[in-house]
């Protein structure tokens, strides 16, 4: 097992390097000269020698590759410089907002998993007519954009019923509505995965054998089908978590949840490149770790894979 994790980490190094390169290249290739932009922001009419001196100071006079290596050596220590907009260090800005986004995405994932299992098993066990209705409902739920869902939920729960408030202080109660918004769509999408997986397994011969043996539906579902689908489901959960990290931006901006979404939208409008770069790197890393954990769970859950790993 330990060997598998080590091998998996080793094969991840090229991917991580590639990710860092993408994050760097997007900035390096972005239109507009950062030095000129900063000078103009300070209201200075730049002389050519000033520009040259500033470029040397930021290391912009060097070639692409040395600049990347230098950036990488700092990025490994999580040093992304200072935010152009606020003048504070990018790392501290991220550190302030990251926990809120993780809490939102995490709780939305839990909600989505619960919703998906309920929807999926209902669709599998119900008869044809109800199953078709449930599938239609699932497709509808997937199709509703999260921002509209959020506005509808606000209309219902904040304006009409008054059960929740819009301007919160970041307490756990304020998390319910944003997390629900995110988890409804994600849960419906995952529910489709559950349904598809169970349906695929039900077409396999071992299920026919189990039916022929006289097993009841519940033991077949729990004892035969569930262990087979847990691996793919965990992978789907990890992918959903990545989607939720991105989707959080939309929901945070509507509910005023103090997460990274606010930071990144501000950074985009102010063209605050260091913040955008750090956001990309951190989100990429978190998603990467999630996928890694999912891979380990997949191996742990699959007896065939486990045996092959221990065997050779």
């Amino acid at each position: 097992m330990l060997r598998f994790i080590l091998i998996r980490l080793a094969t991840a190094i090229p991917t991580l390097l590639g990710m860092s390169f993408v994050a760097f290249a997007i900035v390096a290739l972005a239109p507009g000269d950062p030095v000129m932009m900063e000078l103009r922001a300070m209201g200075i009419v730049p002389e050519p020698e000033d520009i040259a001196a500033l470029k040397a100071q930021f290391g912009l006079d060097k070639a692409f590759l040395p600049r990347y290596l230098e950036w990488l050596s700092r990025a490994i220590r999580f040093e992304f410089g200072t935010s152009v907009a606020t003048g504070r260090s990018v790392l501290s800005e991220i550190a302030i907002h990251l926990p809120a986004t993780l809490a939102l995405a995490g709780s939305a994932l839990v909600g989505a998993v619960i919703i998906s299992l309920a929807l999926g098993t209902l669709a599998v066990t119900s008869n044809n007519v109800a199953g078709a209705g449930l599938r239609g409902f699932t497709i509808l739920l997937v199709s509703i954009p999260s921002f509209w869902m959020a506005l509808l939920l606000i209309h219902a729960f904040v304006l009409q019923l008054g059960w929740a408030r819009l301007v919160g202080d970041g307490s756990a109660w304020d998390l319910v509505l944003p997390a629900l918004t995110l988890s409804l769509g994600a849960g419906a999408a995952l529910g489709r995965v559950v349904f598809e997986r169970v349906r695929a397994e039900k077409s396999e011969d071992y299920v026919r054998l189990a039916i022929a043996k006289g097993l009841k539906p519940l033991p077949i579902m729990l004892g035969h089908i569930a262990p087979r689908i847990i691996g793919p489901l965990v992978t789907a959960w990890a992918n959903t978590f990545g989607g939720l990290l991105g989707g959080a931006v939309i929901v945070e901006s509507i509910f005023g949840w103090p997460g990274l979404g606010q930071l990144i939208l501000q950074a985009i409008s102010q063209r605050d490149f260091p913040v955008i770069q750090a956001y990309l790197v951190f989100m990429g890393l978190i998603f990467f770790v999630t996928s890694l954990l999912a891979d380990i769970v997949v191996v742990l859950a699959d007896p065939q894979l486990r045996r092959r790993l221990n065997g050779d």
Partner: protein
Amino acid sequence: MTERGLRIPALRLGLRGGTAGLILGLVLLTGFAAISLAPLIFELPPPEKMDLLARLAAPSSTHPLGADHLGRDVLSRLIAAIPVSLGAALMAMAAILMIALPWGLIAGLAGGRVDMVMMRLADIVMAFPTLVLALAVIGFMGASLEASIIGVAAAWWPSNARLVRALVLSAGQRDFVRAAYLGGASRLRVVLRHILPQVLPPLAVIISLETASVLLALSALSFLGIGAQPPTPEWGAMLNEARPFFAQAPHMLLAPGLAVTLAVLAFNLVGEGLRDLLDKREPYQW
């Protein structure tokens, strides 16, 4: 199992084949196309025309869906947004396919080291959450509809390339493809005559479902104010403009949101319906 004999054939076709969903989806899409032509036939106020006296007006005979905060007619803006919103999604999808199709085809057909390198490169882009990468691309290009299309295409192509590759690989393993090779058919002929026809139907499913997700992403970006810029009529952007008037004028929120939902639903229904038609598996019942 007595109910099995009682099933009405038409109902059975609809439920089992997902055909009803497919037809509904196609009807919705045709409807959007037809409505986008409505200004040619009916008198509608231009989408940019401001009538400050009608600010936030509720639906009436002059403004069937009401007017927005600048007194612009919501219905005509909604219709004018059809080519913008759907066009953006289709353009993004075309860009995605332009990269993903050759990428997946070449990787799947070449195999070996070429395949490994190409898939590794796709994995690197896929390692970022899609919307996060799109945001970053927009951040460096500056907010505009074009930037959001490019951002979405940049983030969405690798997963599609992977799907195309998987389709090509499974198509290439069929016996009649091997037989064609043994029969001396050229590589090009095998690809065009035997592999592509197998790949196209499942590809149609993917394209339809992916267009739905691309449409969702693009309208979300416009809603965040970093996609289509005002005064361009776009459903997400219209919702964004309506946000401050949430309590005063709920009619401004209802119509654009419904339009996005129906358009996304249409693509999803078509994709799911096609998938059902292609799916020949029959689960064992107990």
